[in-house]
């Protein structure tokens, strides 16, 4: 069954040699020696983090879900957590790959989870590929070379620098997707079920928490809704809602002075001790432990 492709978490995926990486945060690697685009690697892959491929040169096909994209030199390809994809290159592919966790980009910086959720090219398989003009390709060459030059350090400030570069890459992609350039460049007016679902989560959580409530808002049957979401990202709607809730809890622990109980009530948990168990089951640590660890990390990092 296709949905049984295992979801590889960040640390496992980093078994390959990324020169620049921080555990649970981000990794940057050249495509030349990246096993993700190996020749003949027909097995679909699926990871628990966001990915951007920049193909500086080379050509071939990349398949995600039910879509097959043909690309030539100068292209960007976007993957969100849980999406299945595989590469089928015709020519040797050069470029850069960057992977990052949602928590890394959406918690520590001035852009929030709702900003990332609004970037539909990460979630809509149909428009995950952006073919670049040659001047646009040069712009990404410059962007990635600055990225490499500034990320090759272990000094304080590295996390902020990497987040800023990720933001710039996403901003540029958004600008190009939305531009009035060649045909097929624009974002499709009617976005996919998954994108609309993510936008609805942003609007309605934590008040609405069941798949059924969201299926009703989307005007589709619950069964059809669950199957479609699971097919696209390997997680059930309920799991996506829970992940968003945990992410929000983390944001508030880091960015506000609210107590754990206040955060529990704000996220509509009836009992703070249930919130603590809920949080610990999904992250391995308690909310207070998370807050203490992150405050130290943020002040220094």
């Amino acid at each position: 069954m296709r949905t049984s492709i295992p979801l590889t978490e960040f640390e496992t995926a980093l078994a390959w040699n990324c020169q620049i990486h921080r555990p649970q945060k981000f990794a940057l690697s050249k495509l030349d020696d990246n096993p993700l685009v190996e020749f003949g690697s027909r097995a679909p892959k699926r990871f628990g983090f966001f990915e951007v491929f920049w193909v500086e040169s080379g050509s071939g096909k990349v398949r995600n879900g039910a879509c097959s994209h043909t690309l030539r030199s100068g292209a960007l390809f976007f993957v969100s957590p849980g999406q299945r994809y595989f590469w089928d290159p015709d020519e040797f592919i050069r470029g850069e790959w960057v992977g990052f966790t949602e928590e890394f980009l959406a918690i520590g910086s001035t852009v929030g989870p709702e900003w990332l959720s609004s970037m539909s090219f990460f979630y809509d398989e149909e428009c995950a590929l952006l073919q670049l003009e040659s001047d646009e390709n040069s712009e990404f060459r410059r962007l990635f070379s600055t990225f490499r030059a500034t990320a090759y350090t272990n000094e304080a400030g590295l996390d902020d620098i990497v987040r800023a570069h990720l933001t710039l890459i996403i901003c540029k992609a958004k600008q190009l997707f939305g531009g009035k350039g060649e045909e097929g460049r624009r974002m499709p007016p009617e976005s996919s079920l998954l994108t609309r679902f993510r936008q609805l989560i942003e609007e309605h959580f934590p008040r609405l928490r069941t798949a059924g409530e969201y299926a009703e808002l989307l005007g589709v049957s619950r069964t059809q809704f669950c199957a479609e979401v699971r097919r696209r990202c390997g997680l059930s709607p309920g799991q996506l809602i829970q992940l968003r809730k945990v992410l929000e809890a983390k944001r508030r622990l880091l960015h506000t002075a609210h107590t754990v109980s206040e955060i529990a009530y704000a996220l509509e948990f009836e009992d703070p001790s249930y919130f603590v168990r809920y949080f610990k089951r999904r992250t391995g640590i308690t909310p207070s432990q998370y807050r203490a660890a992150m405050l130290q990390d943020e002040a220094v990092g």
Partner: protein
Amino acid sequence: MSDYARGIRMPGLFHLLLFDEGKNGRHDCHLAHRHDFFEIFWITRGRGRVHCDLRSYDFHPGILFGVSPGQVHSWTVDEPVEGRIVSFSRKFFAMDSAHPGFLGKLPFLCAPSGPMVVEVEPVEAPFLDGLFSLLWEAARVEDSVRPERVRAYLVIILSLARQVFNRQNRPYQDAHDTKLAQRFRVALDENFPRLLRVSDYASLLAVSRSHLNDNMIRHVGRTASEIIHERIELEAKRLLVHSMLTVSEIAYQLQFRDPSYFVRFFKRRTQLTPGDYRARFALVVA
């Protein structure tokens, strides 16, 4: 040319200006002034001195310096100066005392007692200069992601400056800075001189008085009340040198009930009376 005259701006968030002092004197910087936003200056040509809170620093190509809200600054130019000026508000980085965020981590912008000058090595200066050009380009495009893009370039520039600063100023290295210390600093900026008691700040930051104090002693090396007193002293000096207010008026503005108590406070800390301090320093600055 329009960039040159008016700069590039988003009201309330950021303002970018080319800096060409000595040719047309657009930026009125000979007069001491202060404002409620952050400002960074990047010097690419010329020479001079910047006077900031009663200290003076030489500047020349490769110097980046930061001015935080409330700091009194002015400068003198020896050779015509060129460079760039970037102003931005706290709001642009969502900075407040609950969450100092990115700006709170920058010692050359947010540690009022430390030097605010970053001296970039000649080999690194062209790289930083390139980033400033990209910042200008990023700010010119008016689309929906303009603020995010401008903020991202500013974060890169300021983080690189932070790394250079930390390498050069070991004693000010921010590795031991804590989130609470940063929050306290921002809270003090926001509420000074309205709130002057440690307990006011402890309740504002939702921590106990003793926790705030212990944390400051451990990580900053001074008690919370000493930090507040330093701040009062600094503000008194600023007003003495840069304003026409009388000593009594300054005392009341800084919440002293009795001017004679202010005089004793000031003398104990500086060995000079406010009047002597004004007489001595007003000469140097003028």
